[in-house]
């Protein structure tokens, strides 16, 4: 069904982006909330904790894919608690499956969304949160009904970028999902194989759609940022 590398790539990137959106917005909201509470009760320890968590969240953006792949394999492999639990529940190992490819794609997509969302929340005028609180809204409700909706363009732009990153992942996917043609071979891996084997035509048939998709996404992100600037 997902035999074509391009189809597999789009399916994996879509799933990874949706999961990253849900988890990333949640993580960003939590970090933002912890930071806010810290500032009101004047506990600098909270602020330092948030900075540390933020740095941890940013690690995947700077570490080599091989290092990230190693961590993920350690986390998901057949000898890890998570990998074993997955194998018990589903009957098959987690590493070197399309599911592992989704997780690999999330490694870069999730931090991108979480960081952008948190940055956007920090840019929201705090008086909006005060107004919501004076109307009886809990911090959680104020975030969900005011903070996040006010960041919707930035979140949409971050999600599009995250999809582009997920689509383009090579190293982490290779490490944890392998390069199994017709099973876990995504488009970026298939390009590598095709070029190595001198099948230039095959490579181009993947390179062109990948490039066009990325171009469209970046153009869309630019348009969104333009709208945001003019507000």
């Amino acid at each position, binding site marked *: 069904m997902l035999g074509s590398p391009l189809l597999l790539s789009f399916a994996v990137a879509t799933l990874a982006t949706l999961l990253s959106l849900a988890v990333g917005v949640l993580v960003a909201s939590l970090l933002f909330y912890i930071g806010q509470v810290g500032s*009101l*009760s*004047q506990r600098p320890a909270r602020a330092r904790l948030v900075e540390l968590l933020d740095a941890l969240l940013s690690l995947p953006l700077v570490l080599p894919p091989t290092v990230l792949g190693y961590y993920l394999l350690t986390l998901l492999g057949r000898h890890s608690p998570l990998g074993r639990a997955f194998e018990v529940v589903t009957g098959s190992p987690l590493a070197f499956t399309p599911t592992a490819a989704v997780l690999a794609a999330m490694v870069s997509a999730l931090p991108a969304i979480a960081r952008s969302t948190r940055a956007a929340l920090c840019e929201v*005028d705090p*008086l*909006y949160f*005060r*107004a*919501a*609180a*004076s*109307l*009886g*809204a*809990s*911090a959680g409700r*104020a975030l969900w*009904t*005011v903070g996040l*909706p*006010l960041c*919707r363009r930035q979140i949409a732009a971050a999600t599009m970028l995250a999809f582009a990153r997920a689509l383009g992942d090579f190293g982490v996917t290779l490490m944890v999902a392998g390069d199994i043609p017709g099973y876990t071979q995504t488009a970026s891996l298939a390009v590598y194989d095709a070029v190595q084997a001198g099948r230039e035509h095959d490579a181009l048939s993947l390179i062109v759609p990948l490039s066009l998709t990325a171009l469209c996404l970046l153009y869309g992100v630019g348009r969104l940022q333009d709208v945001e600037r003019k507000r």
Partner: protein
Amino acid sequence: MSEPRPTLLDAQLSASPDGLYRLEVSLRLPAGVTVLMGPSGSGKSTTLDLLAGHRIPDAGQIALGDEVLLAKQAGQAPSVLVAPELRHIGYVMQQPMLFPHLTVGQNLAYGIAQLPQVAQRARIATLAQALQLESLLSRRPSELSGGQRQRVALGRALAIRPKALLLDEPLSAVDLGQRTELLMQLRTLLSELHIPVLYVTHSQDEQRFWDTDTLTIQPRLDAQHCVIVGKATR
């Protein structure tokens, strides 16, 4: 129906906003409007933030009716600290801060989302009529004039039926021509409420309009202290 018992807003606070100077507040506000005046930077808005719960003083206490909202001794964690969202204190800021992604109607309903739809609509209809917002309910805040925005902010704060109301220079974002009209509407609305209202302004005209108790922030000579002492006496 019996008249609700008027609540008293009682506060003794000591704070050092941004470590710049010391602000001493001693307030006892009965139902009705009390005007708070003082030069810019003397701590008017800080006082409102303290009462609303957006700032924690170094020491002091706040009580609204029978409920203690804050009790704190210097150098200790507060022994009582009610979060802003649980204080039932309406707060209209200098800027209306309407939620730009919601319509006027949705802004008015924001604080009463827990009520049944019918009750929400009834309350919004009453407020919209009193504040002449009926034709604007489906508009976005960006399509409103300054006066209209401030009326929505006022309606939104009143919709929750607050036990006290803080108004921080509510006319500052309103065109001069619309100010008198808004003041009249405000007076009518507030005269029907039996809650303490603290009205911050630096305008002598607005102070004269309210013709009521006025508290003044007195910067002391050394300019390191600002003191509000006031027992409104109606």
